[in-house]
């Protein structure tokens, strides 16, 4: 009964029972409506995520971890988290699941919420819309309806303000992923655009009273001045990097578009050929009839003209989503910089 199933195909049957149980009657969010309207994070979780990245994730590697907490009405409360080891050795596959189970068991003993509610990942300049993330989030959301993925951007945080976002897959995308059918027709039917792939859930940070006391204590003890990184004007490096990533993605996108166009052209050519063949057949048959000979047998058209393979549209959706994220990041960044420039101008005017 408490057996664990593996394999991608069998998720459908097990998911319904787990999703029902995971919902626990706490309002499963209705059909098509999102189950989670707000994410409430403890200060502790934020600090832990920051620390994890700082210590283990230098460079372009992503660090990941698991979020623990509970669901209260339409809020998702995240009260603790633990990090996941990196995939460095080959035997890490087996360790992962066991690590997780052990961790959760141990945490249960010290009364920490041991309910899985999501996972977190760090990102490099905002490039997190990948197939891997989609799949992971899908499997999470499938099993636990209210789960979110927290994306932590360390580089943006180092520039002055915490960058933490919570994402979920939209219900429409969940449907499509369930079917595992990523052909153009299916996507068109589901009417998904890249903007409706992920939905962002607003985050609030909440602390208990005792933690507030701790914060006051820290403030008194450590009179370290703020480094006003946020107001620094020398940030062209960051912008350059962002633009470069954007360009790469746009290149990929154009390649994808070319592929799709060729496919469309091939399909239409094939249609024409089929049509012509049919017509010729009919003519021949008519001629034969007029001559009194038996008509030629109907041949299976589909065997003669094998339809070309439709390209998977999921990748292009992902690329479009990624481009969108980059553009939004860039716009945010330029808005901030414009503000800073105008401030510098005001200072300079006053000087003169």
């Amino acid at each position, binding site marked *: *009964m*408490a057996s*664990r*199933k*593996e394999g991608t195909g069998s998720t459908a049957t097990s*998911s319904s029972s787990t999703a029902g*149980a*995971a919902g626990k009657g706490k309002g499963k969010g209705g059909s098509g409506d999102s189950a989670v309207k707000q994410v409430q994070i*403890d*200060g*502790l979780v934020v*600090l*832990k995520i*920051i620390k994890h990245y700082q210590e283990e994730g230098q460079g372009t590697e992503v660090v990941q*971890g698991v979020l623990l907490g509970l669901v209260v009405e339409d809020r998702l409360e995240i*009260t603790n988290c633990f990090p996941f080891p990196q*995939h460095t050795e080959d035997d890490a*596959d*087996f360790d*992962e*699941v066991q690590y*997780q*189970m052990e961790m*959760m*068991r141990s945490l249960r*003993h*010290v009364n920490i919420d*041991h309910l899985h509610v999501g996972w977190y990942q760090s990102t490099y300049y905002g490039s997190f819309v990948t*197939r891997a*993330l989609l*799949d*992971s989030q899908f499997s999470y959301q*499938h*099993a636990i309806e209210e789960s979110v993925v927290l994306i932590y951007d*360390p580089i943006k945080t180092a520039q002055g303000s915490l960058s933490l976002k919570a994402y979920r897959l939209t219900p429409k995308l969940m449907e499509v992923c369930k079917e595992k059918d990523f052909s*153009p027709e299916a996507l068109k039917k589901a009417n998904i655009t890249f903007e409706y792939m992920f939905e962002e859930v*607003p*985050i609030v*940070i*909440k602390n*208990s009273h*005792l933690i*507030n006391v701790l*914060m006051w*204590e820290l403030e008194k*003890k*450590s009179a370290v001045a*703020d*480094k*006003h*990184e946020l107001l620094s004007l020398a940030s062209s490096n960051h912008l350059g990097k962002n633009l470069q990533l954007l360009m790469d993605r746009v290149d990929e996108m154009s390649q994808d578009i070319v592929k799709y166009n060729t496919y469309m052209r091939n399909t239409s050519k094939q249609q024409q050929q089929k049509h012509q063949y049919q017509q010729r057949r009919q003519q021949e048959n008519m001629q034969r009839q007029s001559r009194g000979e038996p008509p030629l047998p109907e041949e299976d058209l589909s065997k003669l003209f094998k339809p070309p393979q439709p390209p998977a549209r999921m990748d*292009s959706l992902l690329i479009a989503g990624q481009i969108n994220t980059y*553009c939004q990041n860039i716009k*945010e960044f*330029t808005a*901030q910089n*414009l503000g800073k420039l105008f401030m*510098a101008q005001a*200072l*300079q005017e006053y000087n003169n």
Partner: protein
Amino acid sequence: MATPAVPVSAPPATPTPVPAAAPASVPAPTPAPAAAPVPAAAPASSSDPAAAAAATAAPGQTPASAQAPAQTPAPALPGPALPGPFPGGRVVRLHPVILASIVDSYERRNEGAARVIGTLLGTVDKHSVEVTNCFSVPHNESEDEVAVDMEFAKNMYELHKKVSPNELILGWYATGHDITEHSVLIHEYYSREAPNPIHLTVDTSLQNGRMSIKAYVSTLMGVPGRTMGVMFTPLTVKYAYYDTERIGVDLIMKTCFSPNRVIGLSSDLQQVGGASARIQDALSTVLQYAEDVLVSADNTVGRFLMSLVNQVPKIVPDDFETMLNSNINDLLMVTYLANLTQSQIALNEKLVNL
């Protein structure tokens, strides 16, 4: 190319009233074929929350042998000979995440437990000891005995080591404002794990209206040749922050000012506004000071003020105008480009779906 992650679901059909363990989906991007069927119903041990008996911690593990000497009744204990001088000088550097963790585990303590204890992890270097991580350890404490689940501690340490292999056991922490006799015992347990363990106390009972945070290391005292006692000597505690941690702490600190202790994350221009407001405050403080102290002032402060005022570079106005305009043009161009790209992909979407 990345095949979808295998969802591993454990349907919570367990009979225990414990809130069922949510299915442990593997968040890894690489496929993880979970072959081992873990008995998810095993940890039914939570019926006894204060169970220091580690036997039920994990099925098939031997009970902690370290609990055995828990029956020592006598208060004055002869301390074991602790090896060597304190490594790394006399300074302990703490990260704020530790303190937040400790407070959180204190809030979640079992019924009837007066304090919580746990292990401190971190690194040692020549000048100081840096504590970067911690986890709480279940323990049982009563008038005349104390039992610590050392097996659990060892397990957790192994798990933590998988993530950060550089962290060592540095010592232990306890909430509460005093050092009791049981602390000595627990300290002895820990001295088996680490060469010269640190003991950290966080006063969550808020005596004197403050949450005092102190660190100690134990030294021998007494008359040589006779029974030796153990004394806890205090150490200096400093707080270390990574840059990003500093920013995180600043943000979290804002909840102190909100009525229901909740804050949201601010958007781009709001952040710039906030930062400039902070600088304004700082400047007004400095101005106030300068006006108050007109005649006799500190020379060093005066020099700092001079350098501050000279920070604003003196540039010929025309040059500055050109610089400013070119920068603004760059930014506007980039914004335009971003908007253009977004409209392009939207168009593409529409065309494809025709």
